[in-house]
């Protein structure tokens, strides 16, 4: 599945900051690491700040710091700030949805959406960071 650019940037930023909650990073530092636009990332970081996931530290040497509980925040919580995944099949209706083939396809799309939501909703930031460490240790 393809996530929107803002969602992807939001996940990068929040995970990068949650990796070490005592560390402050600027939008430029994070953007450079992931090769993404710092202007776009600055907007994303403001959204993450409004959602209470990061704190902006002002002044010289300022930046952003993770400010939430990585054992409680799931990937789905971050994704929901930027987009509503799964709503296409479960919420609005498309042309043809009322036909027999449209309804049958809708059932399949709902099945995929439910699995996607269950997966993102069950992985906390802490679990993802821990899984990365385990995978690194195996290699």
């Amino acid at each position, binding site marked *: 599945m393809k996530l929107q650019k803002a969602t992807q940037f939001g996940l990068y930023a929040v995970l990068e900051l949650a990796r070490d909650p005592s560390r402050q990073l600027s939008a430029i530092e994070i953007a450079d690491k992931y090769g993404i636009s710092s202007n776009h990332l600055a907007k994303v970081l403001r959204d993450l700040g409004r959602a209470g996931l990061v704190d902006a530290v002002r002044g010289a040497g300022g930046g952003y710091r993770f400010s939430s509980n990585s054992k409680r925040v799931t990937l789905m919580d971050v994704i929901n700030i930027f987009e509503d995944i799964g709503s296409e099949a479960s919420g609005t209706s498309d042309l043809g949805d009322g036909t027999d083939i449209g309804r049958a396809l809708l059932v399949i799309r709902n099945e995929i959406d439910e699995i996607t939501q*269950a997966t993102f909703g069950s*992985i906390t930031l802490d679990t993802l960071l821990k899984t990365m460490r385990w995978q690194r240790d195996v290699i």
Partner: protein
Amino acid sequence: MYSEDRKFDIKLRPAEVDDLQKIIDLDTLVSGIEKKTYWEDRFDRLKSADSSHLIVAGSLDPKSPDEILGFIVGEVRAWEFGSRPCGWIFAIGVSPDYRVRGIGEKLFDAICESCKKDGANSIRTMIARRDQLNMSFFRAQGMMGGPFIELEKSLR
């Protein structure tokens, strides 16, 4: 075989016949469904199959020495649907009064160790899509989507 952890006052050990009713009660409390016959069958299977495991977290508190704080049940199964020998976790439960103390994690580690000794190289379970509590728990232990997909059809 199993470890003791006095910090949380628990002792991991294989279930004994006397634990049956306590496990039924705890499972009923955790799942909301009483499954007496199921647990009686599981206990019978423990006697007949070496690769079947039911591990309990018992209390080390002198005031309640017989209390069961948690349980995990599973076994190694092989070649169903072409799957190589693999440990299966059928159920896990921790008393709501003793959660977030690492008891589930210790039970999970213990059954992984038991299944590994029985020749399994991986461990598997099945969870309802909407069961976020258990899904998050197993994910936090490093479990991920595996190579099989569960399919079902209503027979009504």
